[in-house]
């Protein structure tokens, strides 16, 4: 009896460790998820898309640079010096502008450093933004994609035209 008891302690420890480690491991292996609830300005993608704006109006570098770009404060204020000026969040943006300060947006999606990702070829090939970013046009705060990992990339690369698919399977396409 005593012997059984002695063995039980490590098993419980082991179980606790395993559960904790699973959670911790899962947490850190998610490279793509980001914060959605704590942006400095309560910005709504839905409102802007509903108003008829294109993604590329604000993320104007997506077609010509590796990074899509987050708009400058100047770009926000370009419209918002006249539009919705009574909105509290717009006033917050105006405050940043008046103070000549950048808005410290929280990053939403991120690829790890060992992945070379460029928006440019994806946008040029006609891929719609929502294919990867989800239905952002229906979201207020941008929510992260839950999973942007290698299998997910390859699923899509695999389905491309047979002329190009083998190339898109090459490790060096993303891991330079």
């Amino acid at each position, binding site marked *: 009896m*005593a012997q059984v008891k*002695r063995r039980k*302690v*490590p098993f419980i*420890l*082991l179980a606790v*460790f*395993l559960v*904790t*480690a*699973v*959670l*911790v*491991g*899962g*947490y*850190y*292996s*998610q490279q793509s*998820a*980001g*914060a*959605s*609830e*704590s942006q400095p300005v309560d910005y709504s993608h839905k409102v802007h898309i509903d108003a008829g704006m294109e993604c590329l109006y604000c993320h104007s*570098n997506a077609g*010509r*640079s*590796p*990074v899509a*770009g*987050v*708009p*400058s*404060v*100047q770009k926000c204020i370009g419209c918002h010096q006249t539009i919705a000026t009574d909105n509290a969040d717009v006033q917050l943006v105006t405050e*940043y*502008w008046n103070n*000549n*300060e*950048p*808005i*410290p*947006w*929280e*990053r*939403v999606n*991120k690829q790890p450093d060992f992945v070379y990702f460029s928006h440019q070829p994806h946008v040029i090939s006609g891929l719609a933004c929502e294919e990867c970013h989800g239905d952002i046009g229906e979201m207020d705060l941008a*929510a*992260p994609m*839950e*999973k942007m*990992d290698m299998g997910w990339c390859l699923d899509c690369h695999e389905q491309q035209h047979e002329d190009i698919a083998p190339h898109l399977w090459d490790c060096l396409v993303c891991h330079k």
Partner: protein
Amino acid sequence: MKKATLSRRSFLKLVGGAAAAGATVGAMPVAAKKVGEHFEPYVVPPEEALPGKATWYATTCRMCAAGCGIMVRTINGRAKKIEGNPSYPLNDGKTCARGQAGLQALYNPDRLRNAVKQNGRESRIFEPLHWETALSSLMDKIEAADPANIIFFGGVMADNLYYVTSRWLEAIGAPPPLQYDLHAALEGRATSAKAAKKLFGTMQQPIYDIANADVIFSFGANFVETWMSPVSYSRAYSKFRGQTGGRGYLVQFEPRMSATAATADQWVPIRPGMDGLVALALGKILGGGSFSGMYHNIDIKEIAHASGIELDTLKKMARILANADHPVVVPGGTPAGHSNGYDSYLAIHSLNLILNQLGREGGVYISPNSPAEALEAAPMPNSFADVEALIERMNGGEVEILFVHGANPVFELPQAAAFKEALANVPYIVSFSSFVDETAVQSDLILPDNTYLESWGYQVASSGGDRPAVASQQPIVERMYDTRSTTEVIMALAKEMGGAAAKALPWESEILFMEDMSGSIYGSSLTPYTTKTGKEFWAAFRQHGGWWANKKLSAEPEAVGFKNSPLPVAAPNFDGRAREYPLFLHPYPSVSLSDGRGANLPWLQEAPDPMTTAAWNTWVEMNPQTAHKYGVHDNDVVKIISPNGEIEARVVVYPGIRPDVVAIPVGQGHEDYGRYAQKRGSNPMDLVGTITDPKTGALAWASARVRIERTGRKEKLARLESLHGHGKEELT
């Protein structure tokens, strides 16, 4: 009862396994988490910047005096990488290690971030000042001083800064800037210029066309490491080796094998100070032609004995010269480091004369004239004698304000010159250093200049290249801190003073000054790019990184100063008696740290010396014979004692050095100058005395004799090469 325990080992195993399990399960959707990163997009984006895409700007390197053209890659307004400007003819798209490390000057954590005054010299307590306050207190001092007692001490100054400073000083009645730094002394710039003045009637730097030579005799010109424009000469050297019809033949005369000697076909470990005599012996063997009178009284046997080179070797070498189609003989840094430096230069240049290689392909040219009169190169540096005269004036209370820019004389000058002590007699000292170096610590006010990647400027190529060229310098990034360009500071002072000073510098801003200066080349028929208006030229000048002639255009030297009469080369003087101090000291500029100015950049600290693979400290190179005699080995700490002082250094047993010479790289031993530089190694200039060449006033920096004493301590020197395998790496 046995306690339930979990050993450290099994704990790690458990955690490792669980983490792996966690990673697999990570494929499941989980709650959103913070990446913990912010985007900070521009408030107002610059027109030309595209986030994520690099923008390259052309500018000028200022890590040494050569002024190579560089391109700097910037992303989101930050400088990321420096490369050579492929269009610029001096360096042909290449850079050296020092050029690469320029980024670390920009981002250095020890940079001064604003103007400061020091509360008591050497207190190292600095009080930040608003620029207006700093400049107005400086104005008060200037107005109260006798202009003749205002001295501007520069290193080898950037051409634009020299232009502005000298005009201002002239207008207020002060003497012209004094240009002196240790690197220039170690490469023999002043001696070279004075010899050129005598022989060719011009102070322009001679240029040696080694690319097209078939034989090079180099007397201590370490042109692949540190001499003049090492990038330009290294490029030329690769052409010398790669030419059709043979790979050329290089003979290097120097007491210590430098990287140039290591790559040479023949290294001649000449006895220190004998360069001129060996040149005379070679000339005597060659006959001298119509200048045989120069070698009238030469006894080659005697010279062979004195120089430590066998007579047969001398004869063989003379034959190599005689049989060459395009030989060139290059006087470099080492001969200039002796009291007979000037004589040696004349004797060495005379070989080029009797070989008929002045102004011929593969021979000697004169630095191409400046492309426009207004854009002239700064004059050649002053000699050490001029610095000694300044020290005397300081001691006599004849210097009221001392400005120091681009040099660190307290560190660079021999201790024996007592420059630091003389500073105590100067009531007001102003430093323009970006860092608190040894001289800044002695100053009252520091007005930090922008680093060169934040500055405007231009530099006329004068130490290499085959055509007139001027490199343009423009800010690559916005100023990181509240620093101010020294050119702008001087312009502001001149404006404030009004009268002649304001008239001498009439430009509203530094940019307008630059535009005006570069405009003087606009319209030249030699232009490499066509522009229709002055404005367009100004844009192209910056975009291309300068201006250069579109074809090869070398200036031929006129042999005005050679006489058919005996060339005297005096025996060199040394500090200390041979019996007491049996070894010669050979200090040499470090390929990475130069004269010490690179010591605050960790990339340069960690770059190993190419010959010894040592880094991060000071070492003394000793021939295995000498080391055996003194009973010392690698990593032993020894005292090196000269009549002028003593330092400690770690031994590197190095076969590439004469047994009667010890060599120590210059650059370490800083008391101040930031976290990477200070309290590291020792400064061999503490051993050097104040012997000068009486004919030029140049410092005979290789004139110290030393002795070695063991300390019994051993301290490991960081070296890339393993010492266990006798040069062979062992994989264990």
